[in-house]
């Protein structure tokens, strides 16, 4: 089964990369972009036996840094 882990910076944590992307979009002439925040998408291919609790633990122990990041786990149908 495929699992997607969406990792994003917590609200309030300054995102210099997002800000730079926003400036680049403005430089390209795109209007109306009021904010950009960059995150990560991590795709796992796991056995069906891997539990939500185990996925949660993977996120907390490695995939996300809980000091600055939030994560969301999404199971995709095989």
């Amino acid at each position, binding site marked *: 089964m495929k699992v997607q882990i969406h990792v994003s910076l917590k609200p309030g*944590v*300054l995102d*210099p*990369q997002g800000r*730079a992307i926003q400036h680049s979009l403005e430089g390209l002439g795109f209007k109306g972009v009021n904010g950009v925040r960059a995150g990560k998408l991590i795709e796992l291919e796991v056995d069906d036996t891997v539990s939500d609790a185990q996925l949660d633990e993977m996120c907390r122990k*490695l995939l996300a*840094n809980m*000091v*600055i990041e939030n994560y969301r786990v999404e199971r995709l149908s095989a």
Partner: protein
Amino acid sequence: MSGFRAVVITFPGSNCDRDMAVALENVSGVAPARVWHGEPSLPDRVDFVALPGGFSYGDYLRSGAMAGRSPIMRAVVDAVKRGVPVLGVCNGFQVLTETGLLPGALMRNAAIRFVCRDVRLTVENEGSCFTSAYRTGQEIVIPVAHHDGNYFADETTLDRLEGEGQIAFRYTEPVNGSARGIAGVLNEDRNVLGMMPHPERAIDAAHGGQDGRKLFEGVVSRLVSA
């Protein structure tokens, strides 16, 4: 001083491990042991552990994230509990925050530029083995070279660090966007120091300055007198 048993850890992608070893030998007179990250344990008797700068695992996922979970780090965590002083410089600092040995996190520099130059620091607390040869309030010059040195912690944590005297060094000018200008942080027991500037690059006058020597002298003298 012949008894000073230091260890320098090397991760895949470390590139300041040799500089660290040379600095330690220069100051203490004893060559440190070199330990590969895949080792499950440190040598039996250890007086000091250094986590060097570099780009462990190519900074994949987050700077220091993979190295922070490597086998040797479990041994380093145990050593910290026994009171062994552990210094992490640059990538080593990132590894220490990723391991949870120090609070906070190191994020991309606010200006998104790699910063590589000498910076002036203030010694904020002389009350640790790493800073005991300096004076609180003293200004020193140490080079930085990093992309992810922007120290972040929530306001409660920052207030606690200030209150408990856990800020070891502060930049005297904006360098990377660090919260409250923090350049180096101590743990509660003050036997772990993480810092972005490279004291091991300020050892020899021929390299432009010697302000880093006192950091290692402090560690060595405490252990010799202990």
